[in-house]
C-alpha cells in the first residue's frame, strides 16, 4: 500500500473538463470539482491531461543477457517516465525466455524494480528457433502467469508450428503475438524495399514478406478458432488484410509502433543506423494508412517495440548495425504528434489504444482500467501543451538509439502513478 495519498487538482481526465482526483490507499477514491483536502499531498495539474497508466505490449528489456543495453530496472524507469504502468517484456533475451525459470526471473526482477509492472512474454518455440514448441503451459502456470507468447525478432514461419501454437494456447487463454516476416524474402534485408532501397543499394525488406505471413496467420487463426495478435504492423497492405480478417469476425488484433506512425524510409538516405529497425521504416503512403487504421480501430493498439542497443551497435556501417529503436520515453509524444495534433484521435481514444486495449489483449489484471472511482490509481498526467526538442541524454533507458534526437515533439509526461504511488513527479523519477 502506498504511504502517501494524493489530491490531484484540476486534471482533465481524457482531455475533459478539469476535475480533482483523490487517490487514497492506491485507489481512486473520489473524482469531483474542488474536493476538500484531507491531509493528502496536493498535485497541481492545471492544464494537464489525466490518462490511465499506459500499457506496453511490446518491450525489450534485454535482461537477462544484454544488461549493457538495458536492465529490467533501467527499462522500467524509462517506462515510468513515458507514462507506462505496465510493460510486457519480450522473450528474445539470453537465455531466451522459453522456460518457466526465465520468465519467473524476469517477473521477479520486475517486482523488485517497482517502477512499473513487468509481465513477461514467453517464447513460442525453443530458443526462438521456430522448430519445437516451448513449454507454453509451464510458463502459463508459473508465477509469471504468461498469457502472451511471441518469438518476436523472428517469425514463426513454419505453418504447422504456428497452427499448433495458436491451438495449444487456447487451453489457458493465451495469445500468440506474431512477428510477421517471411524469412526467405528478407534474407540480408536492410531496409524497406522501394525506391529508396534501390537508390541506396541496400537489400530490400519487401512489404509482401510481412503481408503474406499475416494473410496466412489470419486464415490459420480462423481455421482453428484461435486468437492472433499481429506485432508491429508496418504496411498499408497489412492494414487491408487485418481489416478483411476483422470484417469476417475473426479474433485478430494488431499493433503499430510510434515510429511507424511518424517516420519514413527517406530517413535512411543518411545511412545513420539509428533509423534501422525491424520491420523497417516504410513509405509516406504506409504511414498515412497506419494512422487511418489506428484511428478507425483496424489497428487496435500502439506498442513501442522499445529496443535498446549500445552505441557501438549503431555507430557503424548500416549493414553491420543492430535493428531497433528505444521508444518508451517518446511514445506518447509521438502519438500526440501523429494522431492527436492531426485531429485523427482524441485523448479518450489514445487511452483506449495505449492502455485499455493492450491490457485486454494481454489479460494483465489491474491495468487499462478507466479513470473512475474504485479503480486502481494507475494514472499518468500529461502536459500536451509542452513543446521541446528530444534530449536523449535525459533518458532513463540505458541506451540512446532514438530516431527523435533533437526533434521537436509535443507533450511531456509530468507524473506517473502506479497503484497510487508516484513513480514520476514533475517529469522526474521519484
Amino acid at each position, binding site marked *: 500500500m502506498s504511504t502517501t495519498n494524493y489530491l490531484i487538482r484540476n486534471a482533465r481526465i481524457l482531455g475533459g473538463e478539469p476535475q480533482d482526483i483523490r487517490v487514497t490507499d492506491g485507489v481512486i477514491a473520489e473524482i469531483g470539482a474542488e474536493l476538500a483536502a484531507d491531509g493528502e499531498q496536493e498535485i497541481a495539474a492545471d492544464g494537464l491531461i489525466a490518462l490511465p497508466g499506459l500499457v506496453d505490449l511490446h518491450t525489450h528489456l534485454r535482461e537477462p543477457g544484454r544488461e549493457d543495453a538495458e536492465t529490467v530496472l533501467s527499462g522500467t524507469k524509462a517506462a515510468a517516465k513515458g507514462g507506462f504502468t505496465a510493460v510486457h517484456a519480450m522473450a528474445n533475451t539470453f537465455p531466451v525466455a522459453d522456460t518457466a525459470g526465465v520468465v519467473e526471473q524476469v517477473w521477479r526482477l520486475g517486482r523488485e524494480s517497482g517502477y512499473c509492472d513487468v509481465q513477461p512474454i514467453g517464447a513460442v518455440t525453443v530458443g526462438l528457433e521456430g522448430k519445437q514448441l516451448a513449454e507454453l503451459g509451464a510458463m502459463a502456470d508459473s508465477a509469471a502467469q504468461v498469457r502472451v507468447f511471441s518469438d518476436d525478432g523472428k517469425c514463426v514461419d513454419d505453418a504447422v508450428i504456428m497452427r499448433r501454437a495458436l491451438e495449444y494456447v487456447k487451453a489457458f487463454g493465451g495469445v500468440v503475438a506474431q512477428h510477421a516476416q517471411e524469412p526467405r524474402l528478407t534474407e540480408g534485408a536492410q531496409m524497406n524495399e522501394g525506391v529508396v532501397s534501390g537508390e541506396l543499394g541496400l537489400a530490400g525488406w*519487401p512489404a509482401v514478406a510481412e503481408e503474406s505471413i499475416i494473410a496466412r496467420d489470419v486464415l490459420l487463426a480462423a481455421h482453428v478458432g484461435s486468437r492472433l495478435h499481429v506485432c508491429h504492423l508496418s504496411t498499408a497492405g497489412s492494414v487491408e488484410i487485418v481489416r478483411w480478417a476483422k470484417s469476417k469476425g475473426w479474433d485478430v488484433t494488431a499493433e503499430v509502433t510510434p515510429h511507424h506512425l511518424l517516420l519514413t524510409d527517406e530517413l535512411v538516405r543518411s545511412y545513420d543506423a539509428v533509423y534501422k529497425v525491424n520491420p523497417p521504416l516504410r513509405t509516406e503512403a504506409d504511414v498515412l494508412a497506419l494512422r487511418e487504421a489506428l484511428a478507425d480501430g483496424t489497428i487496435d493498439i500502439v506498442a513501442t517495440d522499445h529496443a535498446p542497443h549500445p552505441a557501438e551497435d549503431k555507430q557503424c*556501417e548500416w549493414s553491420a548495425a543492430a535493428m531497433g529503436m528505444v521508444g518508451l520515453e517518446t511514445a506518447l509524444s509521438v502519438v500526440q504528434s501523429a494522431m492527436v495534433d492531426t485531429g485523427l484521435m482524441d485523448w479518450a481514444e489514445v487511452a483506449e489504444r495505449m492502455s485499455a486495449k493492450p491490457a485486454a489483449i494481454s489479460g494483465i489484471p489491474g491495468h487499462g482500467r478507466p479513470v473512475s472511482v474504485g479503480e486502481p490509481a494507475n494514472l499518468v498526467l500529461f502536459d500536451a501543451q509542452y513543446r521541446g526538442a528530444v534530449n536523449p541524454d535525459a533518458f532513463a533507458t540505458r541506451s540512446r538509439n532514438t530516431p527523435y534526437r533533437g526533434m521537436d515533439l509535443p507533450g511531456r509526461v509530468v507524473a506517473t502513478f502506479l497503484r497510487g504511488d508516484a513513480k514520476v513527479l514533475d517529469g522526474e523519477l521519484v
Partner: protein
Amino acid sequence: MKRHLISTADLTREDALLILDTTEQMAQVSARSVKKLPTLRGRTVVNLFFEDSTRTRTSFEVAEKRLSADVINFSAKGSSVSKGESLKDTALTLQAMGADAVVIRHSASGAPKLLADSDWLHGSVVNAGDGTHEHPTQALLDAFTMRRHLNPGVGHDLAGRRVTIVGDVLHSRVARSNVHLLHTLGAEVTLVAPPTLMPFGVETWPCQTSYDLDAALTKADAVMMLRVQRERMNAAFFPTQREYTRRYGLDARRLALMPEHALVMHPGPMVRGMEIESTIADSDRAVIVEQVANGVSVRMAVLYLLLGGSEPAITTSSANTSEETGK
C-alpha cells in the same frame, strides 16, 4: 568542388565538367616520361580498403604517387562486420595520424557517407566503391573515355549521346554512379537486364530500361557490359550461365547490330564468356584498357580538386606551382 566525393548525384554539371577537363590535363602528365607533379607534396592520402580490389587500389595509388602525395595503404579486410576494429576506431586512428584524404572501399553501402558525415575524421573522403551503392570515380573515368571518343574537347558534355548499360544492374555500384553522372552530362542512358536484376523503383531513375538487348544496341553510342557473378544464379536471378549469355551477353552477332562508331566498355573485372565474348573484349571496338589508363588520370583530377583546390594543376614549369595561383 565539394570536400568529399561520395556520389555522382552530388556533382553539378559544372563540377563534372571541371573534373573531366582537369582529367585532360592530368592525362598529359601521364603521357610524359616523368609522370609526376608536386601538387600534393606533404599531403597524406590513405587508401582504406575493407574489400579486396587490387585494380581500384592500384589505380588510386598510382594517381596519388603521380601527385607526390604520401600514400598509406590501410588494408582493413575484416571490418567491424567480421569483428575487427570498428569503422569508427579506424577513422579516429587515421585522423590522429593526420590523413588529409581517405579513399575508402567498403562492402557496406553507405560506409563512405557515414565517414564523411561523422566527426571521426576531418579529411576529404573519396568513395572508391561502397557495396551496391556507388563507384563515382569509375563513372567519371567512363564518362571521360566516352567524351574523348564521342564529343572530344574541353568543356564538352555528352548531350544526346546514347549509352546502354547491360547486366547485373541490381548489384552494380557502377551502374548507379553512371546513371547519375551520364544524366547530368546530358546523355541518354538505357539499362538492360533481366527483370530479376533490375533494382526496385528503377522507373524513377533518370534513364530508360529494357529487357531486350538487341533493340537497345542499334542506336547506342556506347555499350557498357557489367560483370555478372556466377553465384547469382544460385539465388535464382537467372537459370543458367548459358541462358544469361544467350539473352544478355555481347557476342559478334550483337556487335554487328551496333553502329560502327559505338564503343564497347567494361568496368572490369570481366567474366569472359559470360557477359562478353572474349574476341570482342580484345577487339578494336573495345576501349576497356583505355578505361583503365583513364582511371589513373581521373583519380588524379579528383584528388587534386579535393585537396589542391585553387591552384592550377599544371603550370608552365611543373616544379613552380606556388607563384601563379588563383583563378
